[in-house]
């Protein structure tokens, strides 16, 4: 039993070393670049994700598709407006806590 366990552990360790040798040259330089970025870059990406989602719904998707099945054509039932309104608190939070 002990021999089986130690064999498995040896294979596991061998695989770990093999994958580390293959993947470390890819991820380590990436970590160095990302670790050196100033904090405002993080805020740009964070807030940018919310803004991009708003632009996708408001500009790129067809209005008919976004509002398919809406009960009546009032501005208050336009889901493009809903998207922006529901995103705004998040944008404010990410700008405030930066």
């Amino acid at each position: 039993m002990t021999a089986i366990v130690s064999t498995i552990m040896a294979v596991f360790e061998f695989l770990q070393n093999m994958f580390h040798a293959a993947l470390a040259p890819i991820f380590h330089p990436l970590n160095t670049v990302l670790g050196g970025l100033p904090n405002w870059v993080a805020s740009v990406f964070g807030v940018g994700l919310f803004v991009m989602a708003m632009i996708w719904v408001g500009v790129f998707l067809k209005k008919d598709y976004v509002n398919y099945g809406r009960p009546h054509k009032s501005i208050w039932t336009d889901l493009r407006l809903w998207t922006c309104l529901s995103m705004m608190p998040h944008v404010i939070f990410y700008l405030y806590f930066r």
Partner: protein
Amino acid sequence: MEVVGLHPVDIVIIGVYMAGTLLLGLYCTRFVGNAEDFFVAGKALPFWAIGFSIVVSDIGATDFVAVAGAAYRNGVAAANFDWMGSMPAMVIAAFLFVPYFWRSGVFTIPEFLGRRYNSAVQFINGLIWVVFLFMMLAVMQWITADKLMFTVLGWNKYVALWVVAAVTGIYTFSGGLTAVVFTDVVQLVVMYVGGFGLLALSLWEVGGWSALQSKVLAMGPEFQDHFKLLLPHNTTGPFPWTGIVFGLGLVLAVAYMSGNQVIVQRTLGARTEWDAKGGMLFGGFLKSMIPLMVALPGLCALVLVPTLGPEDADRAVPEMIRIMLPAGLRGLMFAALFAALMSSISGTLNSAATMFLTDIVGEMRKWRKKKPLSERMALHIGRAITAILIVSTAALAEPIGDKEQLYVYIQTLLSFFQGPVLAVLLLGIIWPRATGYGGLAGLVLGVFFSFVLNYTPDLFPSEDPFLFVAWWSFVFALIVVVVVSLLTKPESPEKLRGLVWSSVVSDLEAQKALDERVSS
């Protein structure tokens, strides 16, 4: 830890709340006549009920305790899971995934995958989810009974466990998704009142927002990042900004909001597609308030109960309830915790029963070439599964919940699937050229790559790199699906009709055909 004593007024408030929830749930029984009523509320849910229900199903009683604890240890970065980890993903779910699930008239996500790929994909996906939801139900019940009711309140944990199981089980058994959703609406209101009440009193006690900031920042250098949402990439903590934006915002959250039956089932019960999408957006808006009431009290606890220390941070909320809230409000706060618990249990229970019937029983009947179940029979079996699930998970709550490591292991294992499953689902919807072989290869190799990334040491600066594992396994699976699909035979246009994005967006005839299929 000192037990929180309850005044008779508090006990009356909790009792009235439990009885009221049960009565409301039982009242919804009159709307259940067949399986569609039971599993997807007869496709009659308005957007506001969907939004309320999505939020409250997602927040459990343990979240109140655990998120406040994480905020005590790591600061507001703990709120990322409800902000970055929700709204962008809910927008993507609302406009990319939900219309297809809704228009195809399915009850479950695996059922959709079965139509797009094949029956085996549906069965395997359904089985994985049913096992996971079963474990989750047991652990949720045990942790709450043991860590909340016994440790905090000093109540008999077995009695508390069976009372909660009985109340939630009875109304979910009787009223199905309609009862789950409408009790969720009430439960969210109670949660908001209790949660914001605690936040307001905590801030009052600390001396206001500015005082909180200056007092926490004055506590030492290790607290300087407590008011930053996005922490540097090379932080050793669990929330580096790259992991939060890419791993959480673009992969884990999207997989959760689009592929989690407990969340998506509410939108499948919408009365129109507009309500389904609007419900997701409204839910996202309501969810933006959750960190204010679950994370900020954790920050206030740094000032009010500084003696706790990081290892006991999860005691922050119970301690503040004990020292700050007067009789009456204490009962309301515990009613809020019960609301969070019961809504999570009822939502998970209804979804597990739906998947068990649709993706396991239904598929096994197909393989044995038996006729599909009648609506009436499906309703009876659905109710029987609900009863069996709640009784068995309550009975097994202690043995499963006590082996918390097993649950953590299964949760970790499931997180390995999230990136690859999202890649397969996403390409299945937006790219008609994706084939069954491509999907299978992407899933298998993507999960293998997740294991490699997770068990190879020193690849990422974070000590717990699950966010990076999710992102890179997603990217890897995308590449595999594309390469293998291009090397294999394309699917026939007839099979893909109405199941891929381009055919539904541009083809009005396909939209009409799907509408007729749903309404027939």
